[in-house]
């Protein structure tokens, strides 16, 4: 490490100075420290990764926001891992950059030090073939019949190559199981509760949950790979399609990552418009969630009215962006669509109406005896677990973890408005619900301020130029929690684009919430993290006696009934 980098006094924040002073003992293995735009990048030798991760872990207020693996063999002959740690109170990201030689892409695991790294390591193993030592590695993101040795995010594979290499063996599989007479293979949600694809294996005794296992990633859309073949301004449209409910957070996050990497100035008016649309998106998402939660509690009247109120927000979004959903107004350097004073006036009228109606809905709903009885004391997640798993969003805030990207890593126009971050300490389903309820009111309040303060001016940067191989981080507080996009710039397209949605961070907490829960509370508890899933349709039989696990498709179950289980 050079002398300038080794001097802790040169760093802007107290925590970073402390980090540098704690890792100074490894200076022979630290290749440099850069500081720019709230990102402190520390390039380290792979041998010291666990030791440095350990030093960060014991510092307490630092959490793992995301980890990015990148194939940079064509640039430096290495794979790289970027561990992005957040220091909320100082608005700073600490990035540990670890290079792995292409002949031997191995590094020690840090999963025993930081539990939140578990899925990231498994995913990097699947997508890049990186070996993490001293831990069990298994196929995680890729399907079971994916060809061995093909790691799709490596640069030698193009999207058409991958499509030729892998076709789901649905027909062969159907023949193997004797289902030739079936015309279609049903693909759909395993559980009807959330009308979304997910697979939870519940081990129950009576109606009590003994243990839970989550099997995810049933559909991998390969969006990151697709983005690497698109121009910078095309990617926001793809990013917005990551989620059907809160897509705008993804396009904003991506744009911010590119803007961060390339130092692009975003006009203030554009920042305000982004914040306005983000808050409108939060209100509609929370109203949607509250409706679903009430439906899961059997209170369909609340569900219907929540969605009726939400409809006004959808129309408001259409008024401001031209679309009810998937707004498509984000571009790198700003937005494509301005708003005028007439629209602002109409929007304020709508918000006042929504605020009144929502207040009445909540007053009535929380007084329904079954609603309150089933929310309180169920699905408990302790603060310690929330911290250990680096949870985000209302899931974290319902367990007393005061974390909100809008305040901790200010972006767009949030620094111009005042708002409260609702935090509840109980950690149960009621706490997570109340966080969202309070956030709706806070968002409405924020929107009044934003509409009042929209400055005049342009809505997008006139021009910007690309400098390749720079790292940028963009994060947004989505309705479900922190979304973080990391971009390594390329000449014409992102060289590497990493997306981390909040569900990815929050899902590992669900088995903890479900421990000793009643079966009846499972749908609501799973829904309480407001998850987003992909698709699955399999049933799994666990034979505890023989220790075997086998997957049984639904069509076999329907044909053979209990005989299929054997």
């Amino acid at each position, binding site marked *: 490490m050079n002398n300038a980098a080794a001097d802790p006094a040169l760093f802007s924040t107290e925590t970073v100075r402390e980090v540098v002073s704690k890792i100074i003992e490894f200076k022979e293995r630290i290749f440099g420290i850069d500081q720019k735009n709230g990102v402190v990048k520390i390039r380290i030798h792979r041998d010291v990764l666990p030791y440095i991760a350990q030093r960060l872990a014991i510092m307490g207020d630092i959490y793992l926001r995301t980890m990015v693996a990148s194939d940079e063999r064509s640039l430096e002959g290495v794979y790289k891992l970027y561990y992005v740690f957040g220091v909320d109170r100082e608005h700073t990201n600490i990035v540990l950059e670890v290079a792995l030689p292409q002949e031997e892409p191995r590094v020690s695991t840090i999963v025993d030090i930081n539990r939140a790294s578990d899925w990231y390591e498994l995913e990097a193993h699947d997508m890049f073939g990186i070996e993490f030592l001293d831990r069990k590695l298994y196929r995680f993101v890729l399907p079971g019949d994916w060809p061995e040795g093909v790691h799709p995010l490596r640069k030698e594979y193009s999207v058409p190559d991958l499509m030729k290499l892998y076709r789901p063996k649905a027909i062969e599989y159907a023949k193997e199981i004797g289902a030739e007479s079936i015309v279609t293979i049903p693909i759909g949600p395993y559980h009807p509760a959330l009308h979304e694809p997910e697979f939870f294996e519940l081990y129950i005794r009576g*109606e009590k949950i003994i243990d839970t296992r989550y099997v995810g990633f049933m559909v991998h859309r390969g969006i990151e790979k697709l983005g690497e073949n698109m121009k910078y301004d095309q990617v926001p449209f793809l990013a917005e399609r990551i989620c059907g409910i809160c897509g705008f957070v993804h396009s904003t996050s991506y744009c911010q990552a590119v803007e961060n990497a390339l130092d692009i100035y975003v006009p203030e008016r554009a920042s305000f418009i982004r914040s306005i649309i983000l808050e409108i998106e939060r209100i509609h998402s929370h109203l949607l969630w509250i409706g679903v939660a009430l439906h899961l509690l*059997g*209170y369909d009247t609340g569900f219907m009215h929540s969605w009726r109120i939400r409809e006004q927000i959808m129309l408001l979004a259409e008024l401001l962006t031209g679309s009810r959903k998937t707004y498509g107004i984000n571009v790198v350097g700003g937005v494509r669509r301005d708003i005028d004073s007439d629209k602002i006036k109409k929007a304020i009228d709508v918000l006042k109406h929504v605020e009144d109606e929502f207040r009445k809905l909540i007053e009535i709903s929380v007084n329904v005896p079954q609603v309150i009885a089933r929310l309180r004391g169920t699905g408990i997640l302790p603060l310690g677990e929330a911290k250990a798993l680096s949870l985000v969003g209302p899931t974290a805030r319902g367990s007393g973890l005061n974390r909100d990207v809008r305040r901790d890593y200010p972006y767009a126009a949030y620094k111009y408005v005042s708002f409260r971050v609702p935090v509840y300490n109980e950690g149960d389903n009621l706490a997570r619900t109340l966080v969202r309820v309070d956030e709706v009111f806070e968002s409405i309040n924020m929107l009044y301020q934003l509409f009042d303060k929209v400055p005049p001016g342009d809505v997008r940067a006139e021009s910007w130029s690309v400098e390749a191989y720079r790292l940028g981080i963009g994060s947004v507080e989505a309705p479900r929690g922190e979304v973080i996009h990391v971009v390594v710039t390329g000449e014409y397209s992102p060289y590497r684009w990493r997306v981390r949605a909040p569900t990815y961070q929050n899902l590992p907490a669900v088995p903890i919430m479900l421990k000793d829960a009643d079966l009846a509370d499972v749908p609501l508890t799973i829904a309480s993290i407001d998850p987003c899933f992909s698709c699955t349709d399999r049933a799994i039989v666990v034979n505890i006696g023989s220790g075997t696990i086998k997957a049984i498709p639904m069509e076999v179950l329907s044909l053979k009934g209990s005989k299929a289980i054997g």
Partner: protein
Amino acid sequence: MALIETVAAVIISLFLYILLPPLLDGIERKIRAKIQARYGPPTVLQTWYDILKLASKELKIPFTLKYGAFLLILAFSLTIVTLYLLTYILVSFDIYILTLVIVLIISAHSLLVFMSTLSSNPFSIIGIFRGLAIDVVNEMGFIVSIPLYYLSVKTFDSSIKSFLLLSLSLLLALMVSYVGSKRLPYDLHEAEPELASGSIIEFSGPMLALYIYLHLIDRYAMVALPIAIGVSTGLSLLPYISLILTHIIAIFVYILFGAIAVLLGRSRIDIAVKTLMLIYSIIITVWIAVKLV
């Protein structure tokens, strides 16, 4: 003339018992939609259309449920006999027939429970054991509520004490009737978000049509029973007037139950059983205490 009127009233009443429930369900769905600020089914006859459509579908019975169809038909037959006896007690009240009505209603419920236990589907099994837990508590309440209510009506003398006894027993009878109707918060046997229709998950086509029809008739009969007892033993009216009055009150109570259900959420099995046991015990104890004072 009176005999002809009575026979005609009995036949009409029997037809009402058989034809009204799906129509009332259609009305309930419309009211529910109105409260929930949505349009609801296109017509109040929608439940009838649903049943007829399901009945016209191909008959598919899961292997393990193949003998269940006979149990369903047997339960349906018992329910039709119950309806006839329900009409009959309005013409000529008889405590033994009332007892038989109670036995028949419980028998039909038991057959439905037994039928669902034949399924190998875990959702069905969980659902039916939930239903069974509620039924055990509720049918104990049912068995107690009817005699208490009958005694209260029979000994009613306009005093405050008898008014109190009648109110308590009527409250118990109506509660039992509400819980027996398997509306929210006690629809735990099928609890859609948790169990994907639970005990009826494997029913489809004609079998599902018959189950829904039977369930709706049973729901209406559970409402009509305490009203029929009250009208036949408490009021001295001509049989056909008793029949008409019973149906008018039963329709009103049925729709009222439907409107109450819209305002409630779903309970959990442990909470539901404890709550019902507590409330029934309190009402029965207070009734006995008032009686003994």
